């Protein structure tokens, strides 16, 4: 089994989740730079979705024909009050939200960001993914939170565990053209 480098999102957005509680500065969740996408959730409220996609995986990272073995992602996050946690955390692919809710029951750090790791080498997050799903610009993550505080996300980065497959032997006509 091989693993890619961690990659950051190329695209970030706040997407209506029926709550009208937007994330401010969603683009700030695209890099490890201590700038934060933030969302102030009211009493009895919930945030809209922070969606991150276009992680930039290519066939150089995951060869065509590989089997995807697991997805691992890291979120750097904190909240302005303690005892708060995310409520929805899903992978996304071209068809939209996919798999299981990967949300953690661990409480978000108070006042300063802490990394939390999700998934792993053999964790498919309740879905099936192909190499083409992952190299697509639509592959990514979406996050929503609840409760009465402000949530901050510095970044979410992803890496992919895979087993290379397919043949590396090129057809004869490949060599004829060399």
């Amino acid at each position: 089994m091989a693993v890619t480098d961690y990659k950051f999102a190329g695209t970030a957005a706040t997407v209506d989740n029926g709550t009208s509680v937007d994330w401010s500065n969603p683009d700030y969740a695209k890099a490890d730079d201590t700038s934060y996408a933030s969302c102030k959730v009211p009493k009895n409220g919930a945030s809209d979705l922070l969606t991150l996609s276009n992680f930039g995986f290519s066939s150089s990272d995951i060869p065509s024909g590989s089997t995807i073995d697991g997805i691992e992602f890291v979120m750097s996050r904190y909240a302005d009050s303690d005892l708060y946690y995310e409520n929805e955390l899903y992978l996304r692919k071209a068809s939209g939200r996919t798999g299981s809710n990967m949300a953690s029951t661990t409480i978000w750090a108070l006042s300063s960001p802490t990394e939390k790791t999700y998934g792993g080498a053999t964790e498919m997050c309740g879905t099936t993914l192909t190499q083409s799903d992952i190299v697509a610009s639509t592959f990514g993550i979406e996050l929503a939170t609840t409760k009465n505080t402000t949530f901050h996300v510095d970044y979410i980065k992803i890496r992919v565990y895979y087993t290379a497959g397919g043949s590396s032997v090129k057809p004869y006509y490949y060599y004829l053209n060399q």
Partner: protein
Amino acid sequence: MLTLKSKFSEFIELCRKAGACADAGEAIPVMEYANKGNGMKADGTCADGFKLYLDDPKFPEGWAEWVLDKVGKELDEKCRKFFIDKIKDEMTACQVYIKLAPILTTAEDTLLTAKYEGKLPTAEKELRDGIVTRATAEVKP
């Protein structure tokens, strides 16, 4: 301890003392509205009020977690069941299971785990591995 035969107004008072949201459109005024005969007889019982809450989608699921957390120990098991039944969201069920362990019965544990088991890979692993443990004492606000 309140039972299903207790007056619903006693439940409202309990919530008020526990700091229930009293702003326009929030828990207390809406519950008071219900208690004035909207969908239940005036001066109704907790059974009347809780059924109204359970069946009407305009009453948010989030209140169930709040009620169980703040006044759950003042309600008997039959009362609490209305609020547990209102919870559909798997993450809310899991958090109630973790936070309110000291007041939950084995039957309530079973109801809650059935709502999230197999749906929360990260949370369930955290519980299995002991990264997150169930509360052993009352969680203070």
